[in-house]
């Protein structure tokens, strides 16, 4: 009798069996728009960690009087030690010019885009008149109202935005998933009173809290991430609670209990992998929301501390200098394109996780 049974299964494809997540990943890769968006964003984000080598006013490598220096790795370089007749730190761009004309052996190798997001460029010879300056061959996106390079600020701001969004999402998901899992799993009294506490917590007005806190301490990046995460976990906890309520009633949980699994093991080893669908499909959209909230916080002036290159601050400058078209157009386009890419990813993730395509797996 078992032969009949066995033949039935051997009709299945002979390749190695894939777990549900592996199948969904495979499906995601077939959704070209989302998959390419994902590749572009991941590439840009990983590349943004190489920014000090690509967009920076620090020279990559200097040869002066037979000695090699690598200022890109930090350290203080006095102007006098490199034959510049000014007080304070070396200006590598000036030095490159100086060596080019004066010396045959000495040279300075600058990054491809030799401007820093924080430096004031008002003394630059290639910028004429009052800031903000319109784009030119040296400053491809122009400068802002303090004479800082917009391209450098935008591209460093990208790294800040994505790091910020990932930080908020990871922390808020950890909190939200744990809390939601506990409510859904333990149900009864834990759930009833826990839900009331969550309702009170979610009644706290986010913006006022931020305003009050930023009047006491100047929030740095990580404090801001933590604060935002503390307000963002509530939503995901509702989804997890629902998932746990549904999954808990299934027999495989009863089987896990009958095997003598611990509560934690049942929650995280057995139920959680089956309840991840809403969490994963919401994550890209949460990235959109978080990037936008950082932009709006920066725009309102309660975001990252002042010199940090941030998109919200650039958008705000665009509003204040509405006639400087490059200050309006470029930051908003960068924001638009980034959010669009993330939405494409979200769309593809949602489709890859659609139970209708994989209905036989459920």
């Amino acid at each position, binding site marked *: 009798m078992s032969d009949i049974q066995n033949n039935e299964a051997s009709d299945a494809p002979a390749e190695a069996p894939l*777990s*549900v997540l592996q199948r969904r990943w495979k499906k995601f890769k077939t959704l070209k728009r989302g998959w390419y968006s994902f590749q572009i964003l991941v590439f840009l984000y990983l590349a943004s960690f190489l920014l000090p080598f690509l967009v920076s006013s620090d020279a990559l490598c200097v040869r002066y009087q037979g000695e090699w220096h690598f200022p890109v790795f930090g350290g203080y370089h006095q102007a006098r030690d490199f034959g510049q007749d000014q007080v304070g730190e070396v200006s590598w761009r000036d030095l490159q010019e100086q060596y080019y004309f004066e010396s045959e052996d000495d040279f300075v190798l600058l990054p491809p885009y030799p401007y820093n997001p924080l430096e004031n460029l008002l003394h630059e010879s290639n910028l004429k008149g009052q800031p903000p300056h319109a784009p030119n061959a040296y400053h491809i996106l122009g400068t802002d109202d303090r004479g800082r390079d917009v391209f450098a600020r935008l591209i460093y701001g990208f790294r800040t935005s994505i790091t910020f969004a990932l930080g908020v999402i990871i922390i808020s998901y950890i909190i939200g998933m744990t809390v939601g899992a506990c409510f859904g799993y*333990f149900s009864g009294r834990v759930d009833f009173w826990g839900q009331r506490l969550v309702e009170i917590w979610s009644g706290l007005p986010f913006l006022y809290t931020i305003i009050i806190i930023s009047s006491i301490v100047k929030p740095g990046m990580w404090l801001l991430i933590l604060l935002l995460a503390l307000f963002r976990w509530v939503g995901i906890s509702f989804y997890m609670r629902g998932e746990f309520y549904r999954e808990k*009633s299934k027999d495989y949980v*009863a089987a896990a*209990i*009958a*095997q003598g*699994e611990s509560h934690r093991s049942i929650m995280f080893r057995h139920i959680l992998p*089956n309840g991840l669908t809403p969490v994963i499909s919401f994550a890209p959209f949460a990235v959109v929301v978080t990037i936008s909230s950082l932009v709006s916080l920066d725009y309102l002036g309660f975001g990252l501390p002042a010199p940090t290159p941030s998109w919200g601050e650039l958008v705000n400058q665009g509003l204040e200098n509405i006639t400087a078209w490059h200050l309006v157009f470029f930051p908003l386009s960068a924001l638009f394109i980034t959010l669009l890419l993330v939405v494409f990813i979200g769309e593809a993730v949602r489709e890859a996780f659609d139970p209708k395509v994989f209905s036989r797996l459920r």
Partner: protein
Amino acid sequence: MSAANQQPLLSVRDLKVHFPIYGGVLRKQVGTVKAVDGVSFDLAPGEVLGLVGESGSGKTTVGRAISNILRAMSPDVVLGGEATINHEGQTAQLNDLKRSEMLPWRAKVQMIFQDPFSSLNPRMTVQQLIERPMELHLDLSSAERKERVAYLLDRVGLQPEYAERYPHEFSGGQRQRIGIARALSTNPTLIIADEPVSALDVSVQAQVINLMAELREEFGLTYLFVAHDLAIVYHIADRIAVMYLGDIVEIGSADQVYNDPKHPYTRALLSSVPQPDPRHDTSGRIRLEGDIPSPLAKPSGCGFRTRCPIAKDSCAEEAPEWLELGEGRGVGCPHTSEL
């Protein structure tokens, strides 16, 4: 049957499972669902007791209360009575144990579930599913566990190569075999089978039932076999207990209950078993009116009186007397001689 004089493996006395119902803003208790209301039976080592009854009779709840998974799944539940297990000189009161005290007994009491689709975690391979109970209860190396998984798969009639596959790649019958292999993995003595074949095709049902009967011989298992199909229970069980609305109404050896039912409900249940012969005379068939009453508002006195063909006024007044008929035979109806 032969073990009737021995000390029972499992002895259930006056088991009660009540679920409180909460309502209103303040979550006051507004009612109680008496899913199981005073069930008693003994299960000798090596015996198969079939527990039958229609949906809502509480038979599944009995199994879940004994295996102690009910308390973990619904924390509000009120459990009463005793379910005592005797094994190798050790005794334990199952529905009274703390989690840590229950742990050693978990290996000895395993369950087979009704729905082969939801009872296997879709995110685990067959290997992981069967291996996990061993990790928790048996002191085996990973190579030994792997070997045992292969052995168990072979024993339940599946190829050991299937170990790396996921449950969705199998048919219902194959999944139920995986469930059986998982239940066997910790060397249990008592297996609570909760309608193990109801969700399967008829042709596969027979295969799984025969497999369970073979495994019982081979591993010396004791089954509490919950089902609603009397024909299947008659085939595998030594004794049958019939449940109605949270009570056992009749208990006895399979032959006695199947061929000489004493309770009006058992008679009705038996006459509802389909006959394969189309020319079979169905005029004498007992047809029950209405549905099983809600366990939220049980009728006074005898639970079955609302649908009983021989109900009397006295049936509404007090709970029916339990008649012991000898040889482990008992019936919960004092008017049984009128049938």
